[in-house]
């Protein structure tokens, strides 16, 4: 589902964020990307939905060659990749419902489709009762659930989360991770970049560890790090 072959990313200021990264993630897999700050986790994740373009190497996502994609094809890639951000990226002047509906409107979905799918995903993330709330009226955990609902409302094949629990307390962090696990069980490929040692160590999922732009470890049923 996701393949990185010899991927390097050097930023204009000569910082090498990724060095010769080779990974392959199968359909329905759940993968943690771990590593210290500046290890290249975010860059790797951004390359999946082409917020960043690698300097070298090739990336294939759901059969699409991301690196050679025409700019006009990028929106269609992004509809297939749901993204969850550390800072939620919700629109403050729209309600929970509208924030999720917004993602469908952007794909030019019909009103009927929106009316059918938005309540369904809001129920899935446990936010059925707060559809009319504005982001400012919601807790961080609730906001992240709305953001998660927005990421999955297009039924993407791939879900990417960049530090999704970075701003949340442990209970809410677990709730978000559990929903992501559930989505992977339903067939989505899930990639989570994270710092949360206890979550990674508890779940025993595949772990890809990065350091200074390189993949230093890739283990099935892995842990956060040797020191953990």
């Amino acid at each position, binding site marked *: 589902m996701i393949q990185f072959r010899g991927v390097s990313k050097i930023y204009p200021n000569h910082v090498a964020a990724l060095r010769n990264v080779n990974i392959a993630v199968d359909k329905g897999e759940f993968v943690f990307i771990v590593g210290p700050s500046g290890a290249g986790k975010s860059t790797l994740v951004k390359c999946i*939905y082409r*917020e960043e373009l690698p300097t070298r190497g090739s990336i294939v996502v759901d059969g699409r060659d991301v690196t050679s994609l025409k700019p*006009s094809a990028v*929106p*269609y*890639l*992004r*509809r297939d990749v749901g*993204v969850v951000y550390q800072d939620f*990226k919700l*629109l403050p*002047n729209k309600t929970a419902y509208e924030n999720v509906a*917004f*993602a469908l*409107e*952007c*794909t*030019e*979905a*019909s*009103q009927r489709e929106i009316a059918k799918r938005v309540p369904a995903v809001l129920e899935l993330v446990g936010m059925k009762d707060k559809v009319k709330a504005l982001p400012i009226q919601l807790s961080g955990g609730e906001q992240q659930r709305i953001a998660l609902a*927005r990421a999955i409302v*297009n039924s993407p094949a791939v879900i990417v989360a960049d530090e999704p629990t970075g701003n949340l307390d442990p209970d809410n962090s677990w709730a978000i991770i559990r929903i992501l696990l559930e989505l992977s069980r339903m067939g989505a490929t899930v990639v989570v970049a994270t710092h949360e040692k206890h979550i990674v160590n508890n779940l025993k999922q595949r772990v890809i560890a990065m350091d200074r732009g390189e993949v230093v470890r890739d283990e099935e049923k892995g842990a956060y790090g040797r020191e953990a």
Partner: protein
Amino acid sequence: MRLSTWRYAFRDAAGSFRANRFSSLSAIATVSVSLLMLALFLVVAINLDSMATTLENQVEIKAWLDPALKDEDIGRLSDQVKSFPGVQSLTYVSAKEAMEKLADRLGNQQALEYVGTNPLRASFEVKAQRPDDVAPVAQAITSLVGVQKVDYKSDTVDKLFRITRALRVFSLTLVIALALATIFIISNTIRLTVFARRREITIMKLVGATDAYIRRPFVLEGVFFGLVGSLIAAALSSWIYTGFLRFAAANLPFFEIVPGAPLLRNLTLTLLGLGAVLGALGSAVSVRRFLRV
């Protein structure tokens, strides 16, 4: 494209207008003021041009004929001159008519009787189609047998044409400069409303909206700014011009001011079209900067 897509675009444009009421109103005010400037300058330019045309049309070539010419020679000569390219009209003035005109101008019939014979010669009064035709037509007439002398006050006329040409170049340059300034001002003002929504644009890009989808509400908003602004500009400039016409009729009878009837309607249509296009362009240009995500 689905109908719902347009509905989202209209809803977003209206929502943005409401949310950014202040900058929206200032955008409209900016559009009206810039287009009003443009409109006022345009009517001044049109009037200057019409005055120049009037002056140019008064230019006449006078060709004095050999008194020995018979009537049929004159007819042949007249046909010949009419066939020259660039000749618009030809009037034959016989020696007798010339004398009558002179007498009219002097206001003294008797004075002429002292002269006894008629010293004046018959002539052609030729008008050229375009100012540029005057000199070549005069040249061509000079070379005809039977024509004794040709005059079109070349010094004065050349000077006049130089002035009218300079006037036109000057007003065209100013109109273009003002139009460019208007585009710049409008796109800058709209940039403010786009800037207020840059976060939304980024999120739209990230959830897979196409550039066309993102651009649409902004362009609609720009067209709306442009149309409302140009309507205000058109109303104000029509009001000012009508007032000026009334003033000129009472106080400046010797000036030929272009009447308001077709001019103001055309001006309004031009302003509306210009406003819509400038608004759409201004928005599209401003959004483009934020689409690179």
